[in-house]
């Protein structure tokens, strides 16, 4: 047996503070791809599992939750572990055997972390071929607390992702903003853009088959920068259901329910602050 890095690491397994094993690495990589709109991410590990956070412009935050039950083995020796890491590099490593899903070929993953200042070690195996990765971890920055709590939620919609995917895929990118109208009255839920060629609207009536739950108490119109929300399309594409909530400040929470290849459910959420720069356009 070769004294590869992996064997060496196995002998030192006792020194880790975080150890996670999963039979299918795609259960981790696919979820992380859904929040990969910036190069770095902050990883929070606790007994509940992993939360990976990506932020931009202090206005948008995406969180991917991979709960401990997804892993075949998940052991953590501290209450909370936090580190920053290059998400682009992490994803390249997780998909080292290829990005596409090849039927039959499964890459197993073992992740180890020995503590502050140590690299994140990944060991991946597919068909007898082993890959060892050691990724430098960085000092974590403070992540934003959007302070989004359910008591302040004004409007909430849960719908099937299908029809929303169409609307989001065709977002007019010449529009700076995406407007969300949510109301107990018609048109109930409307997405609007105001681009170079004109404005477009997509209406989703509350009694549509696509609606699973419609709880809107107040008519609210909020605008968000298209450029900030566009990355959420990746999460939407993977999801089967999405929850859309706005609070009394006009902050938006999008929560995506994503089923992995083994049928297990993971969540990705996006928080977005309303856009306050523009004046009301005439329309």
């Amino acid at each position, binding site marked *: 047996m*070769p004294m*590869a*890095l*992996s064997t060496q690491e196995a002998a030192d397994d006792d020194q880790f503070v975080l150890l996670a094993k999963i039979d299918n690495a795609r259960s981790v990589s696919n979820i992380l791809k859904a929040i990969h709109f910036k190069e770095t991410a902050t990883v929070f590990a606790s007994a509940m599992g992993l939360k990976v956070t990506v932020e931009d412009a202090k206005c948008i935050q995406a969180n991917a939750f991979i709960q401990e039950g997804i892993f075949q083995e998940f052991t953590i020796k501290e209450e909370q572990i936090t580190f920053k890491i*290059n998400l682009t*590099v992490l994803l*390249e*490593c997780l*998909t*080292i*055997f*290829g990005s596409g899903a090849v039927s039959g070929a499964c890459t197993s993953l073992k992740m180890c972390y020995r503590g502050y200042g140590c690299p994140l070690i990944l060991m991946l195996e*597919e*068909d*007898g*071929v*082993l*890959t*060892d*990765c*050691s*990724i*430098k971890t960085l000092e974590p920055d403070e992540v934003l607390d959007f302070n989004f709590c359910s008591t302040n939620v004004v409007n909430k919609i849960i719908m099937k992702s299908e029809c929303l995917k169409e609307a989001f895929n065709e977002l007019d990118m010449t529009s700076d903003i995406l407007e969300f109208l949510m109301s107990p009255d018609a048109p109930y839920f409307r997405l609007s853009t105001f681009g170079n060629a004109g404005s477009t609207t997509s209406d989703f009536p509350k009694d549509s088959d696509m609606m699973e739950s419609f709880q809107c108490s107040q008519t609210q119109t909020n605008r968000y920068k298209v450029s900030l929300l566009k990355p959420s399309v990746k999460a939407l594409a993977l999801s089967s259901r999405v929850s859309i909530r706005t609070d009394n400040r006009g902050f938006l929470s999008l929560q995506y329910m994503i089923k992995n290849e083994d049928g297990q459910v993971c969540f990705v959420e996006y928080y977005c602050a309303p856009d306050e720069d523009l004046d009301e356009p005439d329309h």
Partner: protein
Amino acid sequence: MRFRGKLVDITCIQHFTRVVTTISKLIKTCVLRITPTALYLILSEKVVNGGVQIWCELPQGHFFDEYAMEGVSAEENEIYLELAPENLVKALKTAQTAKWVKVKLTKKHAPCITIEVDLPTLGAHSRVVVHDIPVSVVPRRLWTEYQEPEVPNFDVSIVMPQIKVLKNVIEKMKNLSNTLLLSANHQGEFKVSVETDMVSVSTHFQDLLNPASGNGGAPQQLNPSMDPEEFAEILLTTKWCISI
């Protein structure tokens, strides 16, 4: 000088095309050497560091049903031609469903390799496509530049793992670093790795074959001081690896 060959088996035609296509991706011009027993595609770059040498031998019996050649003279029964492999590829691409392919040395207004392709038709008459690929004849005095390169004494010889897996891994590694480290030992182990300040990644293949050296001796005899478990290493730029 004369040369005439005919490929009939479709798998031979496709195989031949694949080989020439691979060569064409690596270089713009090469030398085609025609001998009674084989065709050779040769590139010899006279560069001191980091140059590429290509020596591709195609035994004619593997590909051709009919093969006849007459070299520059009776004593030197060979032909050396310089051409752009891409032109060969373009011609061969039309032959992927051919009934037969003829490759000839011809003189149109200039020396050419002519590729004749007989394509299947629904009707009774045949459909032949003719490609003329201009070539230049390499004079005898330059033939020494295109001799079979000597394989230097190597530390390790190993058979590559599945190329598809290797390709996927190298594709990903090239996104992480410009240089790639290849290592192999006498125990059938082969490693591909990259290392930067940010990350180090190493992929490890096992149970590969270490072929015996050309003279029939066991690999260890080439470098008896080398521990069989020890790895021999080489650094390459990833850009070069991708084209292979």
